[in-house]
């Protein structure tokens, strides 16, 4: 009987071997996948097991963490001025995962990041409770407040950047939401979440980073930059040789202007009174490829990581001549995020040098040791310093003598440059137009702030009254003022 016995022994050995192999497959090969699986509650349990680190603005936390005594998720996230800061923080919900900074820097905030290993080990010996690290942002509380309150009940977004560094100073989006309202996982949280999901105004949408809008006239500064860079215009005060009623290429339609005096207007004048014909013709003269090149140097056609991802702004690479001419005045397929327009403004204000926009200044361990310090990073040089100064002169002209008068700070030693935009959109431009405004403030020490403001749908304002200069410029002004004030 021993022969079959030995065979059965081998069979039993194979059974155990199969189990061992399966276990290696499960716990070695598939471990990471299973561990990070969205259905795996452990990720969330871990996220809330310890006091979560905070997101810091101006040295003060804008988030908090309370011990909820729950058996699954011990700590619950709280937010200070949740709606105002939501576009920056994102949310961390026990039921609905997390996004933006809360998600991207989850490792630091929960304290599980490898860079905190030493810190963790140390606190194991000192017996301290494990705590998450902090994320220190570049934002400016006063500017954010001015932006958020300036938008008020309107739908829109504001992005403010420090041109010399690329630090994001304000990032507001309205209507907003309070991430505290669904931070837990109770029925109440679910109700709040579902209501937000169903809301037609999309309050959870981060308009400052993720929404792309037709820029309309504010895009003309990009076209102006391209024209200067391509050498199509050398003297901004020289006539551009553009007839009134200039015909769109490949079309019989003339390019309409909203104001008189555009015939053969100089670049400076054309920007001041926002001549469509002049810029459409310039865009056509520069040519599609050069336009695309300049736009892409400003950051178009690419997602930006601040590190929160922004949508890619669009300048059509395949447009025909007519399309390109329309694109040059911010119509056709041209679409941009508010962040993108703030980057354009910042690059011009910074004498042509575009700094990579970022909103996380440093990551800190619970003991306040700096784990990572982000340094300003040059992204590109879309325009030469001389041309940038020409652009500045023109934009300052817009504020002092043109459509952007409402943004003038009227502070001594501070020059303000800007550009308005009123973007038609929708089928046959039937929808209420978007009001745009971009501007920067400049002192002898360079430019401290560049702002882009969009107001999507102004409540209680007649269609005819919607204009970048009227609605958006005061918000930009308030934001710039707040930044200048906080600098002293």
């Amino acid at each position, binding site marked *: *009987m*021993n*022969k*079959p*016995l*030995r*065979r*059965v*022994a081998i*069979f*039993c*050995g194979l*059974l*155990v071997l*199969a*189990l*061992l192999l*399966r*276990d*290696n497959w*499960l*716990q*070695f090969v*598939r*471990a*990471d*996948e*299973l*561990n990070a*699986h969205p*259905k*795996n*509650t*452990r990720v969330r*349990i871990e996220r809330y097991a310890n006091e979560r680190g905070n997101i810091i603005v101006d040295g003060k936390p804008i988030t908090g963490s309370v011990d909820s005594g729950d*058996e*699954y998720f011990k700590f619950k996230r709280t937010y200070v001025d949740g709606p105002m800061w939501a576009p920056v923080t994102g949310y961390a919900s026990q039921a609905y995962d997390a996004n933006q900074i809360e998600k991207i820097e989850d490792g630091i905030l929960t304290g599980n990041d490898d860079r905190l290993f030493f810190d963790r080990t140390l606190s194991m010996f000192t017996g301290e409770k494990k705590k998450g690290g902090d994320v220190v942002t570049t934002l400016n509380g006063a500017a954010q407040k001015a932006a958020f309150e300036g938008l008020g009940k309107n739908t829109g977004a504001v992005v403010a950047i420090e041109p010399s560094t690329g630090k994001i100073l304000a990032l507001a989006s309205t209507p907003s939401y309070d991430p505290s309202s669904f931070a837990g996982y109770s029925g109440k949280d679910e109700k709040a979440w579902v209501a937000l999901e169903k809301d037609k105004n999309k309050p959870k949408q981060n308009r400052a980073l993720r929404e792309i809008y037709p820029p309309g006239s504010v895009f003309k500064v990009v076209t102006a930059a391209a024209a200067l860079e391509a050498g199509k215009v050398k003297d901004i005060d020289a006539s551009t040789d553009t007839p009134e009623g200039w015909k769109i290429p490949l079309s019989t339609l003339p390019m309409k202007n909203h104001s008189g005096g555009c015939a053969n207007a100089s670049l400076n004048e054309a920007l001041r009174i926002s001549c469509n014909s002049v810029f459409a013709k310039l865009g056509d003269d520069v040519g599609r490829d050069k336009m695309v090149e300049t736009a892409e140097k400003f950051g178009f056609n690419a997602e930006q990581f601040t590190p929160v991802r922004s949508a890619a702004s669009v300048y059509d690479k395949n447009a025909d001549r007519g399309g390109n001419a329309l694109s040059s005045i911010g119509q056709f397929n041209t679409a941009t995020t508010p962040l993108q327009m703030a980057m354009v403004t910042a690059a011009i204000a910074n004498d042509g040098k575009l700094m990579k926009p970022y909103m996380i200044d440093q990551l800190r361990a619970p003991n306040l040791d700096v784990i990572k310090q982000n340094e300003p990073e040059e992204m590109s040089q879309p325009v030469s310093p001389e041309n940038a100064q020409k652009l500045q002169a023109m934009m300052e002209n817009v504020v002092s003598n043109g459509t952007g008068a409402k943004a003038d700070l009227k502070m001594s030693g501070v020059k303000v440059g800007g550009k308005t935009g009123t973007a038609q959109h929708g089928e046959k431009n039937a929808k209420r137009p978007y009001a745009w405004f971009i501007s920067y403030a400049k002192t002898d020490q360079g430019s401290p702030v560049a702002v882009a403001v969009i107001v999507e749908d102004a409540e209680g304002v007649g269609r005819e009254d919607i204009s970048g200069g009227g609605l958006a410029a005061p918000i930009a002004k308030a934001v710039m003022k707040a930044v200048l004030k906080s600098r002293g």
Partner: protein
Amino acid sequence: MSVVTNTTTIGAIEAPSRRNTELALLAFAVAIPVFAYLNVGLALDGEVPSGMLGYGLGLALLATVAHLVVRKWAPYADPLLLPLATLLNGMGLVLIWRLDQSPRLIDLAKRSYGAFSPSAPNQMMYSAIGIAMFVGVLLLLKDHRVLQRYTYISMVVALFLLLLPLVPGLGTDVFGAKIWIRIGGFSIQPGEFAKLVLAVFFSGYLMVKRDALALASRRFMGLYLPRGRDLGPILTIWAVSLLILVFENDLGTSLLFFGMFVIMLYVATERTSWIVMGLLMAVAGAVAVGSTASHVQSRVAAWLDPFECLKTAPESSNMAYACDQMTQVLMSFGSGGILGTGLGQGNSDLIQFAANSDFIFATVGEELGLTGVMVFLLLYGLIIERGIRTSLAARDPFGKLLAMGLSGAFALQVFVVAGGVMGLIPLTGMTMPFLAYGGSSVIANWALIGILIRISDTARRPAPSPAPNPDAEMTQVVRP
């Protein structure tokens, strides 16, 4: 002078009893769980758990009693079986105690049953009864061949045990499986004991009939089929036990019995045709049951792709439940990784229902990691190996068959349970021997170890020195 050689089946002359080896191993088998217990306490509350002394002493006492009994009544027994079983049982107690501390499971119990009672003290008591059973086996069963006399009685007893849960008023239905009976507040799983009794019956029967089954056969389609009269009784009991189990919704056990039956038949007759037939019957049975029983279908769906099935299964259906359970178990294993989270620091309680019984292996996976699971699998592998070695060494066919049947059943049970929770095969509700919470399982498995120890003692015992052979004595030559 002629040399007298005593050839025993294990070859060694004056085989050492290895009792001291066993004692040393037992010390480890007690120390490791106590250390693990301390570990859990420190991880959960940051202090030495208050029950540690009681737990350690209890386990040490049980191990000592078992060891002394083996030393006295089975001195030549295999030295590994007792320490291995003790270690597994001790670790099982630690894991069950650890899950008792989970606030989530406490809450779940309160919500579902209105009250929570810790399982670890019960398991400790079951372990004590298990050791008593082990001692009882060794004391009462002086020679395993005695069991041979009860071949047909065993058959009746096995059938009786298997039928018990179907008796109205006695059997209880727990989540569709009718495998428990309830007597005076205690739930008993007769199937666990039936396994032992059935092994005795198969061994006794096959030992007598093996020649008839192997030789008196008809050739049919290239296979040797035994005569109906030889095959009849054994097929009947197999079919009956299988049918009962299908009615009781316990497919794991039915698979186990079937496998044990095929293995023993193969060993007894040395005919490969049995394996072929066995596999064919298994496939036919699986297809038949799989296409009719809905709860098997959901188990299969949960096995094929639990995450996908969770998305497609109708809300709060049985299938969704089975799939959700499986995803939780898999994620528990996955979250353990190579080294595990450490005892007391995992979240295997997310599995919720049956976390400390059917799914206890997931806790091993999460808290002790790949390393821990492999250790446990190898411990089980060692028990199986020692069991088969005992079977090889046994000098009588009945002992061989019985040891093989028991170790084969043990191996299959480990495979079916561990393979089920790790998603290698569809999940069937069974318990991991010694590790999982459950009185019947612990007690029956201690009895199983007892029987194996008894057989191995007989096998390794040096053959009595032969009576002096008068012929071998020096012939006295009387010289004239």
